[in-house]
């Protein structure tokens, strides 16, 4: 049986979908059989981020209602033939599936895949409850902002009440320069409040915006720092011990290079 992991956050716009796309692709790069499930019914995005939008015929709701077989709804990735997407329906809403149906779908997928990654919608209502229904593990995505951390805290409490203990944290979009100046919450500040193990830290990176718009996950780009951070998370998911990226040092190195070539201001 594969691992069913829900990626959730409470707050919207912190990078859940981007994280699912990158972790799914990253795991596929290591040869794992992966399926990504978009549980954000009515606001589907994961297909766009993966560049698979134009291939959708059937979706999650069709599978739940028995309009098609699972195989027919799964969309194979452009790059890896063992990476699949189960897209959300765009014309329905969250009440179109029940937690029990989601449990059944996740169970079925876990028999065939090593990883089932469920992209949760923002919020704590039925969409969230559906998304977590079939999961055995949870990854919380947050950004170093007070509101995002507050929502993450709420989600951790809710997950606990649904029996999903010890979720892991991905801290997204951190900016070392702002942290250094004391203008942004530090990794320690966030971990101190949330008190859950940290799975990874993703630096804020313009390349992510470019890659999501293109439909090519950043994790494929060897020169992208956010991509490297996602590859590290993938290795940690696989049980490897990988130290957290040293954001400060990397920044220093970049600044050093810039100075050497005469670009640096400071």
């Amino acid at each position, binding site marked *: 049986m594969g691992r069913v992991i829900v990626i959730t956050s409470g707050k919207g716009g912190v990078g859940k979908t981007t994280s699912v796309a990158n972790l799914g692709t990253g795991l596929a790069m290591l040869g794992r059989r992966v399926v990504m499930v978009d549980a954000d019914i009515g606001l589907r995005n994961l297909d766009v981020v993966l560049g698979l939008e134009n291939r959708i015929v059937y979706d999650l709701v069709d599978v739940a209602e028995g309009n098609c077989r699972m195989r027919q709804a799964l969309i194979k990735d452009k790059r890896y033939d063992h990476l699949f997407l189960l897209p959300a329906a765009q014309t329905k809403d969250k009440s179109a599936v029940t937690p029990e149906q989601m449990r059944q779908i996740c169970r079925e997928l876990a028999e065939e895949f090593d990883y089932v990654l469920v992209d949760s919608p923002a919020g704590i209502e039925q969409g969230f409850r559906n998304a977590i229904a079939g999961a055995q593990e949870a990854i919380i995505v947050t950004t170093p902002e007070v509101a995002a951390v*507050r929502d993450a*805290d*709420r989600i951790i*409490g*809710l997950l606990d009440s649904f029996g999903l203990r010890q979720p892991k944290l991905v801290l997204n979009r951190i900016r070392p320069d702002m942290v250094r100046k004391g203008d942004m919450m530090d990794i320690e500040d966030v971990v101190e*409040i949330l*008190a859950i193990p940290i799975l990874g830290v993703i630096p804020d990176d313009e390349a992510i915006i470019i890659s999501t718009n293109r439909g090519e996950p950043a994790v494929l780009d060897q020169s992208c720092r956010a991509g490297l951070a996602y590859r590290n998370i993938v290795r940690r998911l696989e049980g490897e011990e990988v130290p957290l990226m040293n954001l400060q040092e990397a920044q220093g190195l970049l600044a050093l290079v810039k100075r050497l070539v005469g670009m640096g201001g400071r």
Partner: protein
Amino acid sequence: MPRERVSIKGTRQGLRILLDPEGEFEEVLQELEERLNSGNGFFTGASVDIYTGGRELRPEHWAALAELVGKRFGLRIGVIDQRRQPPEELPYGPVRNQGGEEAALADRVEPTLLVKRTLRSGQSVRFKGNVVIVGDVNPGAEVVATGDVIVIGVLRGMVHAGAAGNRAAVVTAFRLAPTQLRIADVITRAPDNASLPSVPEVARIKDGCVVIEEYVS
């Protein structure tokens, strides 16, 4: 027939009084008096939670309510709750004491609830008695107790001690940095740019104001 302004229900935790949020509070209070009167002393000594259904009580209303229910009819008030909906069920029932001596002791010693976990945003503990939390109280979480509140951890959320009007209640925390701190009817909030204290502290009412001091045993 005019609609009922007061409903009295028995629950596992004792009595539950729901007041109509509409209309003049004096009239609601009057009906409450009649209802309690018709009980012929049946309610005396019972513990009771009062829910105002979202009506904001003014201090004089609060006092009148406590006077009527607590003093005249001799009920023990647990919580006066001004939220729109009463909670489905209190997350924790009060500790029940049995037997003569124990009961006599229980009159002097308030029950205490031990919570051995961190309260996260959206979680709340309400208890008739003292509450001890071994863990943090995060922003967005709340603790409401009729007695003292002790937090063996960082208190960043909302805390209300002496919620039934006990002005002698105190709040003690390993690190006291609440969003809002209430004792009885006194409400305070942290200064806008407060930093995390470095020592355990106690909050109590002195001369009608909440005063925070370093904790000394």
